[in-house]
């Protein structure tokens, strides 16, 4: 591993030495790009990519790695002609934190025995995207593995639920890196001047990826589950986990529809969305069967869900009610009604032990966003988010509550989240500080300041902190002890 690190560092130094000189109007792409173009001398092939190293240390003591990942990404685009084009993203990464910090592999709760994917939390997926575009004036078809992004919200997923998510680093990564691409057909047809109808047919299914117990950002619910399995096994109870995922049949194909339009003359944009899918976060059903030996069956089921939603965005270009009022603000919103999903009930840490422990729920989630620039170059972005979960089945609310799927802590019927992002720049935009603050109404916080510096066209360095504050029952509070300082160095070609 040390050897791999040395190679990575040597490569970065080499790249640094060979890419600092630039000629005006000749945009330097560096030696890697040059080598790739020589190796793949196709006229219609465009290549890009990056090498990146990401390091994070636990803020308390600065003596423990949270991450030491080296990443290589290669993006290729081949144009058969103006109408038919192929695109792919290959990505390799290796997080050596599991070698640098023995505590992970020595953790008795380490889940790596049965699930091959969980066995390698340090690396996952090399084929990020791979699709063929067929473009015409009236209809665009995109066939293959891809991400589809719905919605207008930043940092929270209301309608952005076409693709599952990789929670390896909770939600600290950009969604572009943490969404798990799916194989699908994506067709978008033009019906009006600015009105387009999108149809998604998604035969592929992947669940969200949750890091196993013992990983740096293991969800509390996963850790508690692992502890329960340990305790049951120690008590002589055989534990069987059954994964109920939708079979790859035509009947199970997920369907998405989106109507998008801009009302010309008003600059008002809206979408109407529908998704028939399976939940990426499976519901847990448990059953204890007495006998010799006793058996405990844990069934994780991907529930079939229907999502109805919509978005809007509007920039105030003249004023509201009177000229000039609120001019310059961009307002945006997003709403989703999700039916068919299920949640566990119980008390903090403990899923209800007797009788039915899962209830069907309807969810009503929305976000309102307000964006504006102030003081010449300070960008302000505020979001108000509410998530309602209403059980469709009766249960004893004096004894139990709905449980948060990520923490197995009590879930309020209405959870409110506020987000604030401030960003600006200095030194002719080379130095870009920003801070993101997320606040949950249970006094649950995440504060993430960071600053990036563009050394030149190829090199970018970023440093920052992620502070978590709150109780372990809540989304960010569960990582209260995971405050970290991080540094990233990226070389693009």
């Amino acid at each position, binding site marked *: 591993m040390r050897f791999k690190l040395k190679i990575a560092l040597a490569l970065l130094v080499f790249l640094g030495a060979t890419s600092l000189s630039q000629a*005006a109007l000749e945009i330097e792409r560096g030696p890697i790009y040059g080598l790739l173009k020589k190796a793949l001398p196709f006229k219609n092939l465009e290549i890009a990519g990056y090498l990146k190293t990401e390091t994070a240390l636990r803020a308390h003591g600065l003596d423990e790695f949270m991450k030491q990942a080296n990443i290589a990404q290669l993006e290729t685009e081949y144009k058969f002609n103006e109408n038919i084009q192929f695109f792919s993203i290959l990505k390799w990464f290796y997080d050596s934190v599991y070698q640098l910090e023995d505590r992970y592999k020595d953790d008795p709760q380490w889940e790596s025995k049965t699930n091959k994917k969980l066995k390698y939390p340090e690396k996952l997926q090399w084929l990020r995207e791979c699709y063929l575009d067929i473009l015409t004036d009236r209809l665009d078809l995109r066939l293959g593995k891809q991400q589809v992004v719905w919605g207008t919200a930043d940092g929270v997923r209301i309608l952005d639920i076409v693709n599952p998510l990789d929670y390896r680093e909770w939600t600290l990564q950009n969604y572009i890196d943490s969404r798990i691409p799916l194989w699908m057909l994506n067709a978008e047809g033009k019906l009006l001047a600015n009105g387009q109808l999108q149809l998604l047919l998604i035969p592929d299914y992947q669940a969200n990826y949750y890091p196993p117990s013992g990983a740096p950002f293991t969800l509390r619910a996963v850790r508690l589950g692992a502890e329960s399995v340990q305790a049951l096994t120690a008590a002589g109870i055989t534990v069987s986990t059954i994964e109920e995922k939708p079979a790859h049949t035509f009947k199970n194909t997920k369907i998405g529809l989106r109507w998008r339009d801009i009302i010309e003359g008003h600059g008002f944009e809206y979408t109407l969305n529908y998704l028939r899918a399976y939940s990426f976060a499976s519901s847990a059903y448990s059953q204890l069967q007495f006998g010799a030996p006793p058996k405990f069956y844990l069934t994780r089921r991907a529930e079939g869900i229907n999502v109805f939603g919509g978005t809007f965005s509007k920039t105030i270009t003249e004023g509201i009610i009177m000229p000039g009022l609120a001019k310059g603000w961009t307002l945006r919103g997003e709403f989703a009604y999700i039916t068919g999903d299920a949640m566990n009930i119980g008390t903090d840490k403990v899923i209800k032990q007797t009788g039915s422990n899962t209830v069907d729920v309807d969810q009503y989630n929305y976000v309102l966003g307000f964006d504006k620039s102030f003081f*010449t170059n300070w960008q302000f972005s505020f979001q108000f988010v509410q998530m309602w979960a209403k059980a469709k089945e009766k249960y004893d609310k004096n004894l139990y509550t709905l449980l948060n799927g990520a923490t197995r802590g009590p879930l309020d019927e209405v959870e409110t989240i506020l987000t604030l992002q401030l960003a600006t720049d200095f030194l002719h935009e080379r130095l870009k500080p920003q801070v993101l603050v997320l606040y949950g109404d249970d006094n649950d916080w995440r504060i993430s300041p960071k600053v990036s510096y563009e050394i030149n066209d190829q090199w970018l360095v970023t440093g920052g902190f992620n502070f978590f504050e709150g109780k372990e029952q809540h989304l960010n509070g569960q990582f209260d002890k995971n405050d970290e300082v991080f540094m990233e160095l990226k070389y693009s070609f």
Partner: protein
Amino acid sequence: MKKIILLLMGIVLVSGYAFAAGLEYFQLQKPKEGMTADEIMQIKYFNKYSLFAHDYESIGDVVFIEKDGSKRNRRFLRERIILGRGSDDVSYKDLVMFTEPTSVKGLATLTWNYMNPKRDQDVWLWLPSLRKIRKVSAGQADDSFMGGDFTVEEITSRRFQDETYKLIGEENFKGYTSFFDGKVYHKDEPCYVIECRPVRSPWYYSKRVTYVSKNFGGNMLDEIYDPNGKLYRTLFRGWIIMDVNGKPYPAQKRVEGDDLRTGHKTVIIFDEIKFDQGLKEDVFSEKTLMRQRW
């Protein structure tokens, strides 16, 4: 993100507010003898935004030059369609897509500009890092865009109504020596010298002196004075005259900004400039933004 928006909007250079002011779309306009400063400036804005054409395409190279001589680059493709359409107030629509370097590759904006001078632009931004389109606000007028040596309003949003004008002379332009290639541009070009003072006060500049060509109605040089009346920045636009179907279309070939206080400089050079290629309005939609893959 705002800076990205400004960058994308800014390098359009000719995107911004249509002002019309009685000038007929799709007709070449040039100053005539005896015109007032207001009339000359109306033509200057008309030509700056090339409202005489039906559509426009170009490839642009941006070079930021630090005081120590180090450079950073950007390359973009740009398309525009001029509509001058009273029914929905749309003056023209712009599309800018970055192609290099990789750090900005794929960034794209769609801008709709309106005939009503009091109305802001509508701007949509394609963010490759998020894989989504964001509706965004137009930039603050006094902000520099893309870290360069122009303000947002100088490039994208200044309107005829934002200043008052006074004709202070007529002369043959002394020429501008490029800090980028050392060549002298527009030497001896007959021009009007016009003093422009911002309506807004206080503002980041107290006045600018602009040199508008008598031959093609474009402004070649702005000398910009700070609130204390001291010259602190110059903004040069180099023009070429293109023969388009027998008509002499003025086109900006280069823009150079020089901050005399900091020593920072920015140059934008336009290549492969094309007019009236028959671009369809369909291209200027979100669909085109979403076709971006990077």
